[in-house]
């Protein structure tokens, strides 16, 4: 074969591949530029009130001394409760579906389809459920616990799906090796599958947590108050950082809009820290089989 025959004789292929590359760059650009523009405007506007007053003081009618302390605390409480509720239920469900469930049974297939669908339900619908079932039906009232429970329902499908992926990524040869040594199914799951899947489960749970903490709509429906001047308790009135921001944005005074931008920066920092932790966890425990 001569060297010349190795040259491409299809210029059209080159053009379309170039066009495709340009399209890909454009798509990436849209995402990055939008995010960049958002960050820049928010920071430019909000740096003014980004200080200890914002972190440590309760809200006030005077923007100079108004802070988001109750909202930040409530967001932290919500996050902790969310992890405590979602991880056991989510991992349990994922383990059942991956390791125990018989796929040929109609109820298991229905369960799977249901979970996939629930992941796509708008969050406001969860809010309505929370209001009707938790606040009124169970009579919990408009408390932080109800907010945490509704966020749990909201992110549970995401956690289940992430945990299932992680469990499925554990090679079958590991299970077989453990069974061949006389391990019971319980021992195989607890001593091999779960430890091997833990990094993936942790990553998925943290990403789901950061989604839950950014939610506003369902919390408004289950009764997060827009003005809370005292530290929250689990069975008491509460607000949350996104709700606080929402409230400030709605105020007519320009100063409160700046305060809202500052609040957004705090929320973003919390979420970015969580996401960075998830990425670190993934890289730290990445496995080669």
């Amino acid at each position, binding site marked *: 074969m001569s060297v010349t025959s190795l040259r491409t004789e299809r210029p059209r292929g080159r053009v379309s591949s170039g066009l495709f590359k340009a399209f890909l760059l454009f798509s990436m650009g849209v995402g990055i530029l939008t995010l960049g523009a958002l960050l820049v405007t928010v920071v430019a506007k909000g740096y003014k009130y980004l200080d200890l007053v914002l972190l440590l003081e309760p809200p006030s009618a005077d923007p100079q001394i108004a802070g988001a302390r109750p909202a930040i605390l409530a967001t932290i409480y919500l996050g902790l409760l969310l992890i405590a509720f979602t991880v056991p239920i989510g991992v349990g469900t994922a383990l059942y579906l991956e390791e125990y469930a018989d796929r040929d049974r109609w109820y298991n297939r229905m369960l799977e389809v249901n979970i996939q669908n629930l992941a796509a339900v708008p969050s406001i619908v969860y809010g309505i459920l929370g209001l009707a079932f938790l606040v009124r039906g169970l009579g919990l009232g408009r408390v932080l616990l109800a907010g945490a429970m509704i966020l749990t329902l909201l992110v549970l499908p995401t956690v289940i799906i992430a945990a299932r992926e992680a469990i499925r990524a554990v090679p079958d*040869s590991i299970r077989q090796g453990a069974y061949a*040594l*006389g*391990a019971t199914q319980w021992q195989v799951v607890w*001593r*091999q599958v779960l430890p091997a899947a833990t990094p993936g489960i942790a990553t998925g749970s943290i990403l789901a947590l950061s989604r839950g903490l950014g939610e506003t709509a369902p919390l408004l429906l289950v009764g997060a108050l827009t003005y809370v001047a005292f530290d929250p308790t689990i069975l008491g009135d509460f607000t949350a950082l996104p709700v606080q921001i929402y409230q400030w944005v709605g105020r007519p005074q320009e100063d409160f809009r700046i305060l809202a931008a500052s609040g957004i920066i705090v929320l973003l920092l919390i979420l970015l820290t969580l996401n960075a932790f998830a990425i670190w966890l993934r890289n730290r425990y990445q496995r080669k089989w």
Partner: protein
Amino acid sequence: MSDTIRGVLPAQQRELPDPSLREVVFDVDDLGVSYNGKPALKDVNLEIYRNFVTAFIGPSGCGKSTFIRCFNHMNALIPGAKIHGTIHYHGADLYGHEVDPVEVRKRIGMVFQKPNPFPKSIYDNAAFGPRVLGMTDDLDGRVERALEQAALWDEVKDRLKASALSLSGGQQQRLCIARCLAVEPEVILMDEPASALDPIATTRIEDLMHELKNDYTIVVVTHNMQQAARVADMTAFFSVERGEEGQRTGILVEYDATPKIFTQPSDQRTEDYVTGRFG
């Protein structure tokens, strides 16, 4: 048979195992396996003897791997797999109603085709079996003995806490053998244990099989006829039978002392296979 000359001697010069010394470990009667109603293996009858190395050879799809997995209930983990016929283990029905697969696998260990160490330390790999079975008295000694028997101790004794995944492929496979020995089984099933390894690692595994047969009964599936000729006392040749609708079913063609299989097989199909005319 002396270890030093093993492997260089052609099969026909080796001694035949003495029939009077045979003690039956497994007695297989009309065994068949089907997956979702499709037969994969049928009508297998043979006996496996204590402290022998028994090899299963044959072309791809002949059911030899399916067969070896019947001895420790591993087929039970595959949905749709069904076993017909009987296997008696020291006279007890291996598939009887009251048989606990966990109890079976405790006595009948298995080494797989691809080394599958757990993503844990070398020590934890060897200790996994004893731990799940509650044999934790003198765990360190047990781990050390198993690694020594698997000819791995000298290579890993200074880094027992290191990840098993940091070992080479051949070392990983010997670790898997050690893991299996740590629970002191009676039988070791090996499903193409050297097929993913280089020739030097393969030789070490084969040497190991010679050592281990003094204490254990070994059943090995192999693709490699030379390997069967080198390590096995008895050899079973499996082949594929095509049914009327083109379905492929594994059958046992011939089972005999290894030298006989390789030099004077009584079945034409065996002769075609071992002389390389088929498969």
